[in-house]
């Protein structure tokens, strides 16, 4: 008797893979290089997380977010964070509205947060009070103004950027807010070949523009599908061990962690690693997350969740260095 395989899972996975590839290819029409960042942003999108993008100005961060919104057919808002930016400028405020029928009254005017894709540009330039206005929106998907909670429409995806060089007059994001970001991605400076391509594309009469290749509903389906991808017990255990090893008090922590780390990653880090691993497995044509996937997701998922101590900061030890050491030392079996 010839076995009849249950093809639903395979088909769904293949469709996910195709859609993902189509979105990525469409983004690639506009964004040159930065594949890792694009993959990271898409992972955050389909994992229902938010991304913190770090890079020097001019690397196409804003363009990437705009292109993503265009590609997925989502509404897009951009907020340029400045020191005088107020929370109401983000979430919205009640304004006096007057019309003939109902007379003068207060009406809630939605802020730019009410969108699908929000670009929080140079988020570290706003005051902590303003930054915290994003906390509820990012975590709960809702905004409460004057005791009225306004639910944000799914998908809600925040992509914040920050400039690592000009730190004067900035307000570093508090740990609680950093933890809300699914990934922290680092935009690298493009190489000469990519730079040439950028010049070709952006100095011509017609600038390439991405078109919508993914409907919003399909994006939500893909989000749901990601959650159905299984992970073997051993993979989960290894993910937990990696996370635990980032804590200096853990017996599995390497010396580098014990010496330079003040606090290790939160449980959200493990969630981010495993969820990112599931998406990566689907993208690579597999049906279950593997250790390699977790390993690949470890840096963007945990690099902003580690808090170095004074010695680590003084020595200039990067969190990526610490995490790579952790991945080296944690046994896979």
């Amino acid at each position, binding site marked *: 008797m010839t076995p009849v*395989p249950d093809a639903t*899972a395979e088909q769904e996975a293949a469709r996910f893979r195709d859609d993902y590839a189509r979105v990525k290819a469409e983004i690639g029409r506009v964004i040159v290089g930065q594949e890792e960042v694009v993959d990271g942003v898409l992972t955050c999108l389909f994992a229902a997380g938010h991304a913190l993008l770090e890079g020097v100005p001019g690397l196409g961060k804003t363009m990437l977010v705009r292109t993503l919104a265009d590609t997925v057919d989502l509404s897009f808002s951009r907020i340029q964070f400045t020191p005088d930016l107020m929370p109401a400028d983000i979430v919205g405020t009640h304004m006096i509205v007057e019309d003939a029928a109902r007379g003068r009254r207060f009406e809630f005017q939605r802020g730019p947060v009410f969108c699908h894709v929000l670009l929080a540009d140079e988020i570290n330039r706003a005051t902590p009070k303003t930054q915290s206005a994003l906390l509820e929106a990012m975590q709960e998907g809702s905004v409460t103004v004057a005791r009225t909670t306004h639910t944000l429409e799914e998908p809600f995806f925040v992509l914040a950027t920050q400039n690592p060089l000009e730190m004067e007059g900035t307000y570093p994001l508090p740990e609680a807010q950093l933890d809300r970001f699914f990934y922290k991605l680092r935009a690298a400076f493009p190489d000469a070949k990519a730079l040439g391509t950028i010049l070709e594309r952006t100095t011509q009469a017609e600038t390439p523009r991405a078109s919508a290749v993914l409907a919003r509903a399909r994006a939500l389906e893909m989000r749901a599908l990601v959650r159905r991808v*299984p992970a*073997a*017990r*051993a993979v989960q255990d290894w993910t937990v061990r990696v996370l635990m090893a980032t804590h200096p008090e853990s017996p599995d922590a390497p010396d580098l962690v014990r010496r330079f780390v003040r606090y290790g990653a939160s449980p959200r880090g493990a969630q981010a690693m495993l969820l990112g691993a599931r998406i990566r497995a689907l993208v690579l044509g*597999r049906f*279950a997350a*593997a250790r*390699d996937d977790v390993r690949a997701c470890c840096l963007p998922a945990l690099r902003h969740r580690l808090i170095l101590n004074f010695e680590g900061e003084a020595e200039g030890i990067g969190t990526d260095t610490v995490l790579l050491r952790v991945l080296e030392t944690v046994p896979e079996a």
Partner: protein
Amino acid sequence: VIGSTIGDRVLHGVLRRVSRRMRVARALVWGARAVLCTGAPCVIVLLFVRTGVLQAPAHAWAWTWAGGGLVVAAGLGLGAWRAAPAERAARAVDDSHRLADRVASALDFLARPERTAFMDAAIRDASAAAAGVDARRAAPLRLPRELRAIGMLAVLAALAALLPLGAGAVAPGPVHTLRVKLAPADLAVLRSEAVALAGDDDPEAAAIALELRRLLDDLARGECARADALSRLAGLEWRALHAQPGDTAEIREALRGAGNELLRARPTAAVGLALAGDHFERARAELRSLAEQLAHTSASRRSGAARALAAAERRLRRDAPPASGDAATSQGGRALERLRRDLDQAASDAPANPAGAAKALEQAADSLDRMAKELSRMAQVQRITARILEMRRVVAGKGKQEARQRRLRDFMARSGGRPDMLLLGEGDTQIRALGQETSSRPAGGEAPGDAHEPLRLDAAMPKSPRHRDVGVEGRDSPGPTRAEVIYSASERGFSAVDYRRVFADYSGVVEEALTQENVPPGRRGLVRRYFDLIRPPR
């Protein structure tokens, strides 16, 4: 579900193959470790044996091979005993074929009671991937890492076995095959004895003497090992004992007794005098003369002769060696018996039948002649036996000296001493202990007479009140040759005193001194041996 079942079979088939190979690989590793665990102590013990710290027991190699083989077999068995877990096999497959945890995850999903569609899809995916899995690649049978250490151990063992280490040069083995080299003086004395004995009339005695001479020649050339020399001497001693079953002293004593009895009658007095003085040739002639005169002698004189002959016969019967002894069964004993019967016959015939008595006396003369020859032969064999025993003692003593020297060499080699400080003498071993120099200062002690060699002596001898230190400068030489001795003796003149007397006087004094004086035990034997060597022949 059906797809999962088939995937289950495929996966488990692959995992079984990989698991088997992992088990074999583990057995190899454990076997190699067992070889290391066994080999390392063996090499250490070998080093100890080669450097002389330990002595190798009997059948050491057989025990080593048996024990080592047992440990290695146990290592192999233990390594192959437990099956490799399926999870490990799955990990090996994933890692070797870059399957990104496909097989390990599928194995996990297969064990779950409830599976989602994605889990089934993962199992199918893993089964498809596992179909192309090569078990040899997943679990390669590599040579154990311990092989390098085993190789180094083997090289070390070979070096330890082949290179001359420390006490290797003084290992007990070669010492047993050392050639016996006797002192020239000893050899000269023994050889002259053997040459003299080789000309004996008795063929057996001559053969034994010839063989003894050959042995002495071999020893002189240094071509005979100690064990061989002792074996040959034992054989010669056995032959000599069989050639001389009794002692000549008893027979001689019996004949002297008979001679004393014959002295009591005038006609037989001459015969008795000769017999009492061990002059057998003269006694034989006197017997023949008595036989001729007996017919012309008066009856009273014949009666007196008959009584004397009967008394001599009785004396011979009384003093003759017992019938059960070796001497009685020897030719000497038989000749004595014949002589006794002839004397008995002559005693009974002498009063009435002078012709019969004369004939019996003639026969007695012949018997005495044969007995004299037999006694001479027995004396020669006794001398040969004495020489053989002497040689055995010398060779055995030589072996003890060598053993003592070997022990001292071992001791010096282990303690880092100087082997050149060990001097070996020709006749006796002169051992200079550690730290003693070759200057005029005596061995041990601050001054002469203070102390003595600590290795072989007991309490130091106290100085005599009349003690006087005399410095004597020694000369290392083999001593004067025989020609030099004879020449110097002719210059000074020969002694008029019998050497036997001189020897007896001196040896008596020496024995008395050895028992009464505080002579070190190690020196007593040497003194006695010296006097044995210069003892005059009988």
